[in-house]
């Protein structure tokens, strides 16, 4: 059991949980993830370790509520516990050791970018982070990323920072200065757009993939992705890959495998909540 010791709402659908997991807090490296099972009977899902505090024995998980499983997870309050956390899994990010790097985060992908930006900053790399959201309230981890270097915030509606997509800001950054590496994590269309943008100048670009996964140790093969025409397992061969070699169309397609199921599960779960909230008829109404 892993007690939750901190909980913060970062945006309308993104929550930060600080959870006791002393062993993982001690040994995790940037880019690694854990497999989490909220309670008995819950689905196993992969979550990137956004941060860790080895002294307190806690890890930070940043969760976007997109379905029943993630909703169940963020419904847990401080004092409650997560049933199972396994890890740290996957390979650590290969960080460049000098020069200039751009870290691009879209949506909850910003949480994956954070430990990378921190690692680069610690190594003395000049870091520019570009993060985005639909509008101001969807922008997360601004303060944490500002501490790692330059930060460009974009909003789709222009309500905060620079109007437009993160890719447009990236285009300007790479036009203005030599960039030694780009790290991009976010929705598949964003990562694909970043890959296309850095391809002409052959800027080494790394993306962290989050395909469907069961065990996280290579045993199910559900997380297979095509990279450079070869099938790789994101859990053990990744989760980070050369963006210029990833078959993003296939990845996006495979991610939609359970869309119908997830929709139904969410509706079922909301119906159950609504039913519980509805006062029982007393016969006097």
């Amino acid at each position: 059991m892993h007690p939750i010791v901190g909980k913060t709402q970062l945006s309308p659908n993104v929550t930060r949980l600080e959870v006791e997991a002393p062993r993982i807090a001690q040994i995790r490296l940037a880019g690694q993830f854990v497999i989490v099972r909220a309670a008995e009977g819950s689905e196993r899902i992969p979550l990137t370790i956004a941060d860790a505090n080895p002294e307190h024995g806690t890890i930070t998980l940043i969760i976007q509520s997109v379905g029943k499983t993630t909703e169940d997870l963020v419904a847990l309050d401080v004092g409650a516990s997560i049933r199972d956390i396994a890890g740290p899994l996957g390979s650590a990010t290969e960080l460049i050791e000098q020069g200039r790097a751009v870290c691009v985060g879209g949506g909850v992908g910003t949480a994956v970018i954070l430990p990378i930006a921190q690692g680069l900053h610690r190594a003395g790399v000049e870091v520019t982070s570009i993060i985005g959201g639909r509008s101001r309230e969807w922008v997360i981890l601004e303060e944490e990323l500002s501490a790692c270097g330059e930060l460009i915030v974009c909003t789709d509606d222009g309500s905060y920072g620079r109007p437009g997509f993160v890719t447009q800001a990236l285009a300007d950054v790479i036009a203005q200065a030599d960039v030694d590496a780009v790290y991009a994590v976010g929705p598949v269309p964003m990562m694909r757009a970043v890959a296309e943008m850095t391809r002409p100048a052959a800027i080494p670009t790394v993306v962290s993939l989050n395909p469907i996964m069961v065990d996280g140790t290579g045993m199910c093969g559900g997380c297979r992705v095509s990279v450079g025409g070869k099938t790789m397992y994101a859990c053990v061969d990744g989760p980070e890959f050369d963006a210029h070699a990833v078959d993003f169309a296939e990845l996006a397609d495979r991610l939609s495998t359970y869309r119908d199921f997830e929709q139904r599960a969410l509706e079922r779960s909301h119906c159950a909540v609504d039913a519980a909230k509805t006062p029982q008829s007393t016969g006097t109404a």
Partner: protein
Amino acid sequence: MDDQQAPELTFEHEPGERAPITPKERMTILRQLMPEQDADTRATNFEEVNLGLTQRLAMIEAERCLQCKNPVCITGCPVQVNIPRFIDLLARGDMRGAADSLLDDNALPCVTGRVCPQESQCEAVCLRGKKGDAVAIGYLERFVADWANRHRDGASVAPASSGKSVAVIGSGPAGLTAAGELAKRGHAVTVFEAFHAAGGVLIYGIPEFRLPKDIVKDEIERLEALGVRIEPNAIIGKTYTLDELREQFDAMFIAVGAGLPVFMDVPGENLKGVYSANEYLTRVNLMGAYRPDSDTPVLHGQRVAVVGGGNVAMDAVRTARRLGASEAIIVYRRSDQELPARREEVHHAQQEGIRFELQVAPVEVVGDDGWVTGMRCVRMDLGEPDESGRRRPVPVPGSEFTIDCDMVVVAIGTRSNPVLTTSAAGLKLNQWGYIEVDGAGMTSLPGVFAGGDIVRGAATVILAMGDGKRAAAAIDAYVAGALPEATPPTEPVTAP
């Protein structure tokens, strides 16, 4: 044997005695049939297919055993269960004696009584099988083991501590067997399991209808009562390194299984609707996706093609049938003769309406809009025997055809999982990435033993258990400082 009628036999017994009949009379008793769920009913549920012998049927079957002077059945068993002894005690009505005898030899008899390929092991060499049917050793093992499970009071007392500690990595059949044997000898055993629940292939792989999960849980609880500690969510090579464990424990046994699924390497394999058997069965069994209210999703294919002919393929195809597939098809490149699955599984699959496309090999998975719509296949001729002794399949030119299907499950085997093995410096592997061991089961690292699929490649539950039992004996000697010099590798008992 299925056409035989169980004769109405009753024996007048003195308590503690066997039936007073001559060997000749004994020879006339026909093999008893396993009561089972009706095929049409069971193809729509996940309850166990075999219902187990009744006391009466078990007592009759036990009388068929001739109590041979030279019991070859024992040597046919990878864990050397003293088969005539427990059958004799059963025939005498001494259930406690039979149970103690069986549990003394076999840490997981409820499991092996259900999933062992008896027809190629103990029952293959049973003298009664030379003329007629072998004694139904598997049925009797299950009967006695289930009795023991229901009458656990007084059993399993934790023995006195030896002061030695052993780490077991992996909680599948090899790991659990080793853990049980080591705990019986008083060693402090910690089992590390990567998943959130113990049991390995017994819980993620073998379906409920063949091996109910409550039975596996009972077997594990029995081990815990012996003092075995289980640590879930611990991936060795990630959560802890092998070197860390070597510092903390006096010895260790690596039994992590083979693990990584092998795919066919044909076009279209990453379409939605293509599963490895590992993923499909894990979703259904470990994660309970067969239940309608499950949080874990699984696709419910209407027409499902399962590639492979082993027990895993049979488990997958029969699972698909139970999840509503109107057509569930085995696609296997050799003939019926070579199907590696237990005969009972093949037979049960046939009864449940599974279609067998034999001497057929896939060449491409075809799809539309990202989803599987069919599998293009080629027919195979069987040529000369290959290294495995089985006739080599050769494609028939111009025989290509397409099987319409909306789901494909690939069950053609596994390969070694490198997560642990590549993170342990000095651990000697063979060319396929499996761990090399000596005759005692010890690896190139002193005090580190290994067994099961991570040594042999994909094999059976009972062979893994045999490894666990042998390694436990060797570890017991090792921690006492009494392990003789490295013994040359013995010829492992191999599955057919």
